[in-house]
């Protein structure tokens, strides 16, 4: 716990949580939100396509959304790390925080599996949806729903 106390007393941590600057805590919180909206939202779009909505959309061009999804994830991960450093003692003592991290990890692994098993070869294989794609779409939707819900509950459940 000494390390966490030291971290919480660090200059960066104090700037985020106590400076009162609009560029501190508020902006980092917004980046965390828009990153989530990008990575989870684009995943949802792809998953809905794999589940049979918008069937006329070819898969290959959707694969070009993966860099945008990874960018969204990077923004959310970096801002999330900053939010954690600002308040490590409380956050790391909350069980719900670990639940959220678990679902985020599962969602990200699921995203990479969607790439390797469904979208990477879509260009050479137009029209065909890889076997297991529907299952991956359903688990992806579930993991992002669970990650968002448990993430939101960090502010309410201690």
């Amino acid at each position, binding site marked *: 716990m000494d390390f966490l106390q030291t971290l919480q007393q660090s200059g960066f941590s104090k700037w985020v949580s106590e400076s009162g600057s*609009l560029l501190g*805590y*508020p902006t980092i*919180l*917004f980046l965390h*939100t*828009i990153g*989530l*909206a*990008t990575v*989870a*939202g*684009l*995943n*949802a*779009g792809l998953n*809905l*396509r794999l589940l049979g*909505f*918008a*069937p*006329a*959309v*070819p898969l*290959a*061009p*959707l694969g*070009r*959304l993966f860099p*945008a999804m990874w960018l969204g994830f990077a923004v959310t991960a970096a801002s999330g790390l900053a939010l954690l450093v600002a308040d490590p003692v409380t956050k790391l003592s909350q069980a719900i925080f670990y639940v959220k991290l678990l679902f985020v990890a599962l969602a990200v692994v699921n995203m990479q599996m969607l790439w390797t098993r469904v979208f990477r070869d879509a260009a050479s294989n137009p029209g065909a949806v890889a076997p297991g794609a529907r299952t991956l779409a359903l688990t992806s939707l579930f993991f*992002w*729903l669970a990650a*968002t*819900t448990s*993430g*939101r*509950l960090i*502010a*309410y*459940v201690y």
Partner: protein
Amino acid sequence: MNLAHVHLLLNHVPTVGAAIAIALLILALIRKNDELKRVAFEVFFVVALLTIPAYLSGVSAEKQIKDRDGVSLMMIAAHESAAVTSLVLMQLAGAFAWFGLWKFRRTARWGRTTMYALLLLSALTLAVTARTANLGGEIRHPEILATDGTTSTEEAIAAVEQALASDPGWINARGIGRWVTDRTWIWPSAEALHFIGLWLIFGVILVVNLRLLGFMPSLPFSAVHRLLPWAALGFALNTVTGMMFVIATPDQYADNISFFAKIGLLMIAGLSLLYTTVFEGPWHVGAGDRPPLRVKLAGASAILGWAGVMYFGRMLPFIGNAF
């Protein structure tokens, strides 16, 4: 000028707007004119969208006048409860109109059921909205209360208050507010849903509007158009949960500059949703086509509009004064 003034500017939009939309719809049915039907549905969508700030500015107007002489708090409460019912019906009608427009864009046909269902729903909405407007008028214009000339204004107000006290009505704004705040699990659940709705909207809006900006050129726009109901679902989810927050704790939003900006940008985002749903420009972007400049501008304003809604939503406690 303050937000009470905005309420005076917007409070006629729901009644007058719904009446115009109904007139257009009837005219279109008589003339069997598909283009006019589309206009009527579009007008209904826009009226429903503007009803959101009409309701919300009322929350601010209440704060301005509630401590003044001759203003009956009970009559404000009655107006507010009627406004909740109006808002619910108007948003249902608006969602129905949106769905009709989305379907028309794909099939180029209007179903009879769709037409008559909207006509019925909008007539009901107009009736409830007119009553809301009347109750609102009585708050500052008690002269419309005293009917037979023998009773004084004070007696008329007392009579109305007595009637309201014995029957607060089926939908009651204060009751809904207490229902939300008295149960500890509702607010966090609604927050979680609000964020799920947020990424559902933003993700679908990104896919659709990135195409309009020229990305993923091999995608025909008509194919991604099929995803739009999921953005509309997110919009509906967030309207319901967002209104729960406002009804439960109106003081957090009544004079919050961030909230004002958020709702202003929501109007831009909502109009851009109408544009992508039914206008000609995006629809004719086929596989391999480069979108024209005005379509690209619409795509950019949709993405920036929703991002702005998120930004000012997040800034409610920081630039504004919530919590």
